[in-house]
């Protein structure tokens, strides 16, 4: 078969010989198997290799970023921001915060962060990543306003792969709400392969939200690794609708006592969108909690996938882990696949999971219609109701309003 990609480490400028050698090694490892297909357990439901080969003629990594691009500022709520173009940090502003509390610099590629389940896209990221940011929040500092990361991509990018790495360190007793805001409506097809690393030190609290502004024709893969220390809290909200292909692979390591993590997702998908959430929650210490609730509404030819794994180590007694995925299928061409997995080696635990998928309850529709509500509206009401459970969990009033509105528009749009 003809290869539909052509990656070269030489396209990356200004790296040492040593780094070049490392990157070439990673690229060789990637090339052995290429893009993942269904034979890999982590991609059981998605043949990325086929999807990409159908939609791309030749993916390369030799894109050129535009010098300057305007972005539309969110007015609905006050926030700090980071402006990132093609994964490279361009500017930032923290006008609501005290000075010298937030450290921002470019990502340091000398440090390697190992991941639990190596996958070929991580190898590719290791080989090709450039740019990216490093944020560190000072001890005992709680940010007053959320931080929005405006992720934009140059319009010239087409048939290319953009790779970068970010990392975020929360020092002891600090707090942050971060919004990953993907702002692109490109009609061009390109692939974004990113890697994020969160480190939560004792007593810190991080809320992490994924959302995007527009529909676009891009393919995203994000691997998010996080390490949690004692008494920390990590809440993830995945609300990114409208992307042609999106897979978020979340690895959460609960390494010390009383660490808590959650993943909430409300997605309303249409057209030929493909959204996939893969989680692997590793209970490595006793008395930790994890919670996952995934809700998908699927229309047209869309596809929702949830692969969640809870792993409980032998010493992780008194674990409390919960996993629920629910899907509403509105069209026979839509598909929902789930693999909620439990791997448990400790006996004094409370672990459960549930998964349902089905159609909208026609009795409820009938009930609403009999009270004078038109059918279309009745459907929307029920869909709203279905997703509202997640939306209610969103943090902070202004932000919640903004996000709810955004999702509301997406529901009504499809």
């Amino acid at each position, binding site marked *: 078969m003809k290869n539909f990609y052509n990656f070269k480490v030489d396209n990356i400028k200004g790296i040492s010989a040593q780094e070049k050698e490392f990157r070439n090694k990673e690229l060789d490892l990637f090339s052995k198997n290429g893009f993942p297909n269904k034979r890999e357990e982590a991609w059981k439901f998605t043949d990325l290799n086929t999807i990409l080969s159908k939609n791309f003629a030749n993916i390369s990594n030799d894109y050129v970023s535009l010098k300057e691009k305007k972005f539309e500022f969110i007015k609905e709520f006050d926030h700090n921001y980071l402006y990132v173009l093609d994964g490279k940090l361009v500017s930032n502003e923290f006008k609501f915060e005290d000075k010298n509390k937030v450290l921002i610099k470019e990502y340091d590629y000398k440090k390697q962060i190992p991941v639990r389940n190596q996958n070929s896209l991580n190898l590719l990221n290791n080989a090709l990543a450039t740019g990216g940011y490093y944020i560190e929040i000072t001890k005992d500092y709680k940010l007053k306003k959320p931080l929005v990361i405006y992720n934009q991509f140059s319009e010239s990018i087409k048939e290319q792969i953009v790779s970068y790495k970010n990392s975020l360190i929360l020092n002891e007793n600090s707090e942050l709400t971060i919004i990953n805001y993907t702002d692109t409506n490109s009609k061009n097809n390109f692939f974004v392969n990113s890697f994020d690393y969160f480190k939560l030190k004792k007593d810190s609290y991080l809320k992490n939200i994924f959302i995007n502004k527009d529909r676009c024709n891009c393919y995203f893969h994000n691997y998010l690794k996080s390490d949690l220390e004692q008494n920390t809290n990590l809440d993830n909200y995945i609300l990114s609708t409208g992307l042609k292909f999106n897979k978020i692979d979340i690895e959460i390591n609960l390494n010390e006592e009383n660490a808590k993590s959650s993943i909430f997702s409300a997605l309303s998908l249409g057209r030929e969108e493909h959204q996939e959430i893969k989680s692997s929650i590793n209970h490595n210490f006793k008395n930790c909690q994890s919670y996952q609730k995934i809700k998908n509404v699927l229309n047209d030819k869309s596809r929702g996938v949830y692969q969640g794994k809870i792993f409980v180590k032998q010493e992780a*007694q008194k674990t409390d882990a919960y996993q629920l995925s629910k899907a509403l299928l509105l069209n026979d061409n839509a598909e929902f696949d789930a693999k909620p997995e439990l791997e448990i080696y400790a*006996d004094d635990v409370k672990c459960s999971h549930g998964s349902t998928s089905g159609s909208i309850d026609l009795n409820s529709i009938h009930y609403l219609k009999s009270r004078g509500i038109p059918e279309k509206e009745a459907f929307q009401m029920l869909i709203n109701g279905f997703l509202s459970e997640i939306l209610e969990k969103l943090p902070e009033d202004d932000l919640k309003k903004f996000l709810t509105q955004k999702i509301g528009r997406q529901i009504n749009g499809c």
Partner: protein
Amino acid sequence: MKTEDLKNNKDYKYGFTTDVENIRSPKGLSEETIRFISNIKKEPKWMLEWRLKAFNRLKALKEPDWQKPKYPKINYQDLYYYSAPKSASDKPKSLGEIDPKILETYKKLGIPLDEQKRLNGIAVDAVFDSVSVATTFKDELTKKGIIFCSISEAIQKHPDLVKKYLGSVIPLSDHYFATLNSAVFTDGSFVYIPPNTKCPMELSTYFRINASETGQFERTLIIADKGSYVSYLEGCTAPMRDENQLHAANVELVALDDAEIKYSTVQNWYPGDENGVGGIYNFVTKRGACRGKNSKISWTQVETGSAITWKYPSCILQGDNSVGEFYSIAITNNHQKADTGTKMIHLGKNTKSKIISKGISAGKADNMYRGLVEVKNKASNSRNYTQCDSLLMGNKCGAHTIPYIKNNNSTSTIEHEATTTKINEEQLYYCNQRGLDQEEAVSLIVNGFCKEVLQQLPMEFAVEAQKLVAISLEGSVG
């Protein structure tokens, strides 16, 4: 372990060996072995060709490696693929002709082959190593037109039925172990229920591995024609040996319009000793096809034995309104490993499936539920409900759940729930308080935990299974 030790070991009461003279095939897996098996069974040419086709396909296949329980590499050239008691080489025409030692064996196992003495109304096909040694109640069944015989006999006497259905559910080249079975299968049961007939008694096969260094490869084929009903039971035991023995069976069920098949298994192969030495590798392929409208296939299994159990009794729901059910109890203790579950594939409209799985893990065992529920695009108004619960006893064992759920139809509903817990301390305390000792209490609670599945078993089996549940967990608490 020395033979004497084995005799003294009372934990596994079926661990004895029977001293009978054997006829064996040449050692190893080769075309010669397959020709030997086919020849000794006096099979027609088409059967030999079928086997050889499977053997050729096997050469291109690799052993699967995705499963959780890993096992040392099996040397397929070091096994005997056919072993039969010498006295059975000409199939006995009546029970009086069976080697008394074999009769004694089955008596010890509690399987009555003597028709006069048995009361419980079950027709038995007894398979000893590679051959079927006796089938009871043939006459009574023949009157109704029911065919219940060994598969070797069916190949000779009912070639049309065998040709039509053999390999129609598990294709010749399905996966490694299924294909291996297709190439070298030695015996097994064949059941055909004619249209509009309700089988008057439970049909049963009892499998026994006796000879050492042999693998058992049996093949069962059950066909329920339109409007018929059959309940089929399967039991298995093996002597204690410190070598691992391979058991790779294929079971195919076909249910036509309005037919129902109920298939129950109590699997009690030798699980190995407490250090994980010896035991049976139970790598079995079981699959049923609900071909006709309103047909139903129900699998019930109690898995307590085997060093490694690796099986997924599945239902392909092709006919509209067909129903698939799967009830399972899997108990693992010491070093046992189980990777079991089911597949429900909904193809027809209004198809329903139900999965109840109970896993109990003790000692250093690993117990896994792995299942697939798939609703295809055209299977409108289909329904699935899955419940899998795991119970952990002690902190050295593992319990895992991996369900695969695929829904591609907007009018169908799939529900799945699973929990993992340990035995409730309060319940234990309550039982202790009322004078039950720890082991009795655990057995009572576990039996309660498994009740939904035990209820599905035919009465005689349910009693045996309940005892088995208690025995399997002896010494695991306290």
